[in-house]
């Protein structure tokens, strides 16, 4: 069975991308926890990963007039949070919720790294034939 490295790591790569994008947004939220009028933002992790699950069809470009399919968008859509405790200054950041989300995203990221490591170890074993 030929192994396509792109496909082999695609899902985990996407998961790492979305997790790091989310961590960036959460960092912005934490940084702006005291900024009046700032609206907290986040990504829909589940939605982003569902899109990644379907394998996009690939087309070969064999002529310079051919137009290849655009690469699958690696960024998830950024949405605004619905505040559960609106504040007077228009800020919608809930610092505790953000800290919790940071911890959750970090665990997801580390889990993905663990899966990736296992895959790499498996491939290594297949290549070298011994440990």
């Amino acid at each position, binding site marked *: 069975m030929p192994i396509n490295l792109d496909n082999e790591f695609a899902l985990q790569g996407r998961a790492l991308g979305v997790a790091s994008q989310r*961590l960036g947004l959460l960092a912005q939220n*934490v940084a702006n926890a005291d900024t009046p009028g700032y609206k907290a933002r986040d990504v829909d992790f589940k939605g982003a990963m569902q899109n990644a699950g379907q394998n996009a069809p690939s087309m070969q470009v064999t002529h310079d007039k051919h137009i290849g399919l655009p690469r699958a968008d690696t960024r998830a859509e950024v949405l605004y949070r619905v505040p559960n405790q609106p504040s007077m200054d228009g800020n919608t950041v809930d610092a505790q919720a953000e800290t919790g989300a*940071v911890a959750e995203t970090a665990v997801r990221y*580390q889990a993905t*790294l663990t899966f990736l490591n296992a895959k790499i170890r498996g491939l290594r074993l297949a290549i070298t034939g011994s440990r």
Partner: protein
Amino acid sequence: MSLWKVFDIAGASMSAQSVRLNTTASNLANANTVSGSAEEAYSARHPVFETVMDWESEASAGVRVSDITTSDKEPAKVHQPGHPEADADGYVYMSNVNPVDELVNMISASRGYQNSVEVMNTSKELLLRTLRLGQ
């Protein structure tokens, strides 16, 4: 990659919160300052936080201190004829700092700073683990 940007954002937040801590320290230090006229009396300083939007790179948002405002609350007038700073009528003017407000600000700034440190530590840990991937 967004994880690198986390350092910039958290760093900006820490610097903004430290400005806030700085103004709080100034205000508390001058809470009992007395002067000879209402104009010269110390007025409380407060930073104004502003979101910095970076539209070029997928709209990342940092934070900065856009302005330092001085409180326009009237300073308290106290009758102390024996005070060397007293004006012709024997009044001195206290600063308009409210120590309770300042302590609340201090706690809030310290929490904000701690949260940013936490976020920075988390992303550092993740980046290091990513570097060790496959080893």
